[in-house]
């Protein structure tokens, strides 16, 4: 049962509630970003961006099945739209792109490896995907190459740290609360330890 590819109802429900909680947190994070931007200026968005990838990393690390990263990120976007994000429906596309970026990294490990480096890489994956997306959307071609490189590096770092590393931290904390018992993450950890 623990090794099935199909999703159990419990797993579907967990991804749904994770999406809901992070939808709210993402909205709050927009506020943090805007304030920081007022103080630090242009590249702030790239610095704080990583947090908006975190749910895909957490969901993937918990559920450990194909699609978890993508689904949770899209759901979080949906919740934000329903709660009234000023970015509106475009947010769904953003969610889709970011989720796909993280999912691609997990797919590359054939959904088998969820150690910290992979989680951080998934954050970078989401960062790259979102960079391509914003490039097209905001016509980055017009920017100076030096600035572009800075932005890209900052965003990848942010994805690795605010997405991957912080996601790992949250997963560890959640694991300690015992709510993940019986899920694939629990099973694999106990096997490792044994």
């Amino acid at each position, binding site marked *: 049962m623990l090794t099935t590819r199909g999703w159990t109802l419990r797993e579907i429900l967990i991804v749904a509630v994770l999406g809901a909680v992070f939808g709210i947190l993402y909205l709050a994070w927009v506020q943090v970003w805007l304030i920081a931007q007022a103080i630090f200026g242009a590249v702030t968005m790239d610095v704080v961006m990583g947090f908006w990838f975190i749910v895909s990393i957490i969901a993937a690390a918990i559920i450990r099945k194909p699609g978890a990263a993508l689904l949770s990120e899209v759901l979080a976007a949906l919740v934000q739209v329903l709660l009234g994000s000023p970015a509106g429906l475009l947010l769904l596309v953003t969610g889709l792109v970011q989720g796909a970026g993280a999912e691609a990294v997990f797919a590359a490990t054939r959904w088998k490896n969820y150690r910290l480096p992979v989680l951080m890489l998934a954050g970078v994956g989401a960062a790259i995907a979102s960079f391509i997306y914003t490039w097209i959307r905001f016509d980055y071609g017009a920017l100076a190459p030096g600035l572009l490189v800075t932005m890209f590096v900052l965003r990848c770092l942010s994805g690795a740290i605010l997405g991957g590393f912080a996601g790992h931290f949250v997963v560890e904390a959640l694991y300690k609360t*015992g709510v993940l018992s019986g899920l694939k993450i629990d099973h694999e950890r106990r096997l490792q330890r044994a």
Partner: protein
Amino acid sequence: MSAAFSVPEAAPAVAWREVAVRYPYAANLAVGPVSLELRKGERLLLLGPSGCGKSTLLGTITGLVPATIPAEITGEIATLGVPAASRSPAEWSASVAQLFQDADQTLCGMTVGDEVAFALENRALPADEIATRVDRALAKAGVPESWRARRTAALSGGERQLVALAAALAQEAALFIADEPTAHLSPDAAARLHAVIGGEGETFLVVDHRLDGLIGTIDRVAVIGRNGALFAEGSPRDIFRARGEVLAAEGIWRPLAADLDRLLCGIGIVLERPPLVLSEIIDGLNRLSPADRTAAGTVIRHFLSDRIAGPTASTRPSCATLVHAACAPLFAKPVLHDISMEIGPGETVAILGRNGAGKSTLGATLAGLLRLKGGTRTGPAGGFAFQRPETQFTEGSVRAELESIVGKDAASIDAILSAWRLENVADQHPFELSQGQKRRLALATLTADTRWPFLVLDEPTAGLDAAASNEIASRIAKIAADGRAVMVITHDMDFALKTCSRGIVLDGGSIAADAPLIDLLRDGELLASAGLNAPELLLLVDWMEAVPC
């Protein structure tokens, strides 16, 4: 998929053969090995001390354990003649209705109407049939029509349990399983539930700690011991007399009558038919010779003095006072108006009232946890044991939970653990405990904390077995003797009588009575209008007063 199953007629409703369950990576078995049969049309009561694995065993009937709640199972389970694992838990819902110990496990957070219809919708029954079945179930459970559009998340603890009952009844399944269905129900609602179980036809499997009122409807009792193995089964009358000593040692509830019968047997007064209710004992006593009656009287006086709290005189100044207070649940409109009361040092007060009367709201307000919507509150904050014990847990293990109160002193932690029989689960996560263990842990942390000038215990006995119930009763007495105060919110009139000297009855959004508890419980008119029942024990008190001996 509903009626398509053909069931071999002779097969038992459920048969466990050498079943043992172990939760993932746990050192000990959660239950077993158990071999037991539930026959068709039978009403079986499963008894056992808290934590012995009753809920786990019930979970195996429809395969929820291990399909949704991961565990390793050995042995064979046949439900309605076929292996339990041959169908998914969802497929079993057409023939098995399950009322979980925790109402939140039965309810999905919809409106009351949707919640009750949910199982029927999943079986794709026609809409008009669903409507009639929902109406029938709501009426049977006593859920008022006006609740239909309310969300289950905004109901009181007992109201939720009532809706869960209606949702399970609506399934109209051949096999009805109820895990502590009355733990949060007020006496009138509990009586309705007992009437349902007493009804003809279906097969019932019930686990409960509160036996009075239930035991008369039961055909057979099976008892699981602390070690998780089945050690007795038989008719209720035989079990309680023949195995009374063992049951007491295991900390298992027995009906009051069985308890008294044991004492009377000890002095040689043996009623011909083992009694289940006190009225049977009184009938028997009335037929005794005067000499025997005197002897019995002595025993009974002792029996009563253990079970009725003596009066306490409160000394001023009071611990906490409410004046013209309007009390409201979290994020809701006030449900209690113009409440004026105070609680003084050394007092023990029982708060009584029907489900949804506002007891929890009053308790949390008095403890200083909820803000008033009007009026004033004076006095320091008090400790509050939440009705849902999980609300209290903030740490990662049972031991850490205690350490957060007592400090790292290993000796005193071990003392608490063994007093509450939690030593075997000390390193388990608080959320992976059985319901009774959760309640014990919550009470243990609260009573170990000596900072509180007064404590409010919300339904402390829900889910507790006899041993733990005695433990909390003696702690309450000790706290009161220390000059602190305790408020007990409870539906268990016998427990109230045992621990409290003063009583407050809530009804209609305000305090209907505030007087010595024993006086309140003898006021039939008040009890009837507030949805309460007199405790069975009062029959005996009345008998003692009427028959001088």
